[in-house]
């Protein structure tokens, strides 16, 4: 039995408890708030008896060294906590174990800091019974505007403990723990026949733990933690909304830059072989390009029958001599075979030349006919001013969606890894990322 300190008007400094097995001293920060303590030297575990003293109840088989030394103080979330207890727990029926540090502050009470594969979770009991929707037995809980997805359900066992605890840690083996996550937050329900406790946890970075407790090294992070946030993350609904807005702006921009009222035909003429001069050129009549810089669409037509036709041309500004070159090849073949009639190629096509300044222009046409053809067909050329440049739109569209698409796939892969450790993995789609 261990002596009991008497209440005084001064909150006392830590006491010492003596391990009756090896006579080692255990620092007693909690005084009689400690309902259990464990000697880190001989692995003995003691539990309080009706507040009278402590009795030996268990001896651990293994020894684990805490990465955060007992009785180290550190500031987390603005509160100075002291590490009073350390336990290694494992999930009943599963091989893996995690480390749990019991933190204590005189006015804030107890908190736990849990480490698994280098991922850290800080958790505290909730002050009130949470107003959950549904009641707390569902796969998805709504709490304070967030949606929590069930992540784990288990019973645990204690492999090792050292320091002091505000409760008998072995009483936990009757408890069923259920965890719901909404990274970086977690809701934890601990329930046995006598107690139903709700805790709220938050994932914290190992560097925050290092800084808080002035520790130089901690276990390296492995895999994706249950509450880990993606390094460069974005809300999917934000991504989808912003992409939609971007496309809308592109469409509006496309419409504003080129309103249909500006689209007009400024040249339309047909030519034949006889119009070609001795140097192989057809010089057209001039025509006017009006307004500001504009895109011109050159529609070329030739009534081909199993034949081809090439047209190279120059658009020449008569005032400045500025030249724009273009070319279009047409070919059209048709016939019948055992499967019926067929055709390939086209008799008409177009080419767009963008950013043509206003002014008076003419065309130099350089047509080429099939020398093996029996007929030199005539051809037509039509110029439309102010056409929409869908190529630019498509380019910007693709550039605009490439980042959201990559981000969504990254998030999908990240979430898949997160849920590898869970028996309750939801069907992941981009809508529930």
């Amino acid at each position, binding site marked *: 039995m261990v002596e009991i*300190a*008497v209440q005084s008007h001064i909150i006392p400094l830590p006491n010492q408890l003596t391990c009756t097995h090896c006579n080692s001293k255990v620092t007693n920060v*909690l005084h009689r*708030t400690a309902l259990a303590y464990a000697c880190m030297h001989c692995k003995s575990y003691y539990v309080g008896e009706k507040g009278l003293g402590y009795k030996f109840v268990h001896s651990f088989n293994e020894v684990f060294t805490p990465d955060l030394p007992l009785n180290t103080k550190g500031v987390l979330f603005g509160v100075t906590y002291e590490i009073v207890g350390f336990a290694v727990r494992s999930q009943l029926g599963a091989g893996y174990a995690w480390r749990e540090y019991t933190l204590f502050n005189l006015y804030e009470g107890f908190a736990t800091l849990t480490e698994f594969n280098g991922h850290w979770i800080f958790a505290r009991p909730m*002050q009130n019974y949470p*107003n959950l929707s549904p009641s707390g037995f569902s796969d998805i809980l709504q709490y304070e505007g967030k949606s929590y997805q069930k992540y784990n359900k288990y019973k645990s066992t204690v492999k090792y403990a050292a320091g002091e605890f505000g409760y008998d840690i072995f009483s936990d083996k009757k408890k069923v723990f259920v965890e719901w996550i909404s990274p970086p937050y977690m809701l934890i329900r601990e329930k046995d026949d*006598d107690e139903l406790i709700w805790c709220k946890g938050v994932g914290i970075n190992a560097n925050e733990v290092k800084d808080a407790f002035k520790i130089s090294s901690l276990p390296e992070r492995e895999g994706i933690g249950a509450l880990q946030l993606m390094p460069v993350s974005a809300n999917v609904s934000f991504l989808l909304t912003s992409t939609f807005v971007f496309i809308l702006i592109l469409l509006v921009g496309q419409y504003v830059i080129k309103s249909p009222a500006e689209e007009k035909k400024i040249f339309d003429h047909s030519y034949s072989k006889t119009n070609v001069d001795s140097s192989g050129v057809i010089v057209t009549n001039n025509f006017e390009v009006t307004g500001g810089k504009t895109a011109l669409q050159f529609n070329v037509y030739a009534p081909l029958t199993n034949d081809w036709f090439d047209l190279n041309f120059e658009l020449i500004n008569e005032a400045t001599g500025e030249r724009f070159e273009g070319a279009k090849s047409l070919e059209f073949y048709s016939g019948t075979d055992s499967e019926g009639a067929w055709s390939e190629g086209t008799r008409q096509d177009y080419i767009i030349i963008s950013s043509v300044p206003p002014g008076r222009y003419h065309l130099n046409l350089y047509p080429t006919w099939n020398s093996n053809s029996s007929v030199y067909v005539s051809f037509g050329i039509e110029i439309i001013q102010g056409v929409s440049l869908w190529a630019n739109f498509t380019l910007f569209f693709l550039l605009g969606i490439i980042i959201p698409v990559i981000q969504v796939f990254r998030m999908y892969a990240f979430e898949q890894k997160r849920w590898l450790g869970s028996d309750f993995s939801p069907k992941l789609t981009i809508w529930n990322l």
Partner: protein
Amino acid sequence: MCKVCNLTHQFKSNLAAAYVCPACQSILYKGVSYTQNKPEEAFRIFEDLTPFKLGSQLNFEEINYTFIGRYQFVLTNGNRNLWFLHANDEKVLYLLDQPGGYVICKKNPHTLKKSDYDFTLGRAFEFPETNKLFYLSSKQRNTMTRMEGEVFDIQSYNMSFDACDFANDKQFVFGLFFGRMNNDIYVGQRYHYSELKLLNMRKADG
């Protein structure tokens, strides 16, 4: 006056039934003379790191209350204090205190109906003069009661009983169940320590 150590005490609260002598732990019932029999003794309070002490003051709803007595319950899953607070005009308040949890409460004049003695965790309960449902979140056994200062009940509180916590998102109920139809219900609200207007608190050593 304490028969054992001759300490005198002037009762502050009319509701107090007894006073625990701080020197010898004798339980001195109000109006009882101990010339013949040796008074029974209360278990001495043990160190639980509470920030409160007898004589601490709480200003609640513009009224100054003084901490005049305490029950220290040794529950199966931890210890809890029930402080007895008294104001000059016989107003009374209770404060539940365990590490990191502070509930200011009042005693509900009603007792729980017999039909409500089904303590299944998570079950919803209604309490008179409250307008929300409460959910049973903990049922524990009080294995020992320690006392100091003025206390209002010795018989029921100084024995084993069931202690239950009922809570919702705003309020908290602490129920002490001494037997069928005999229970005390405290209804209150949780506060963060920084929200409490306190004076004359315990000071940390060093």
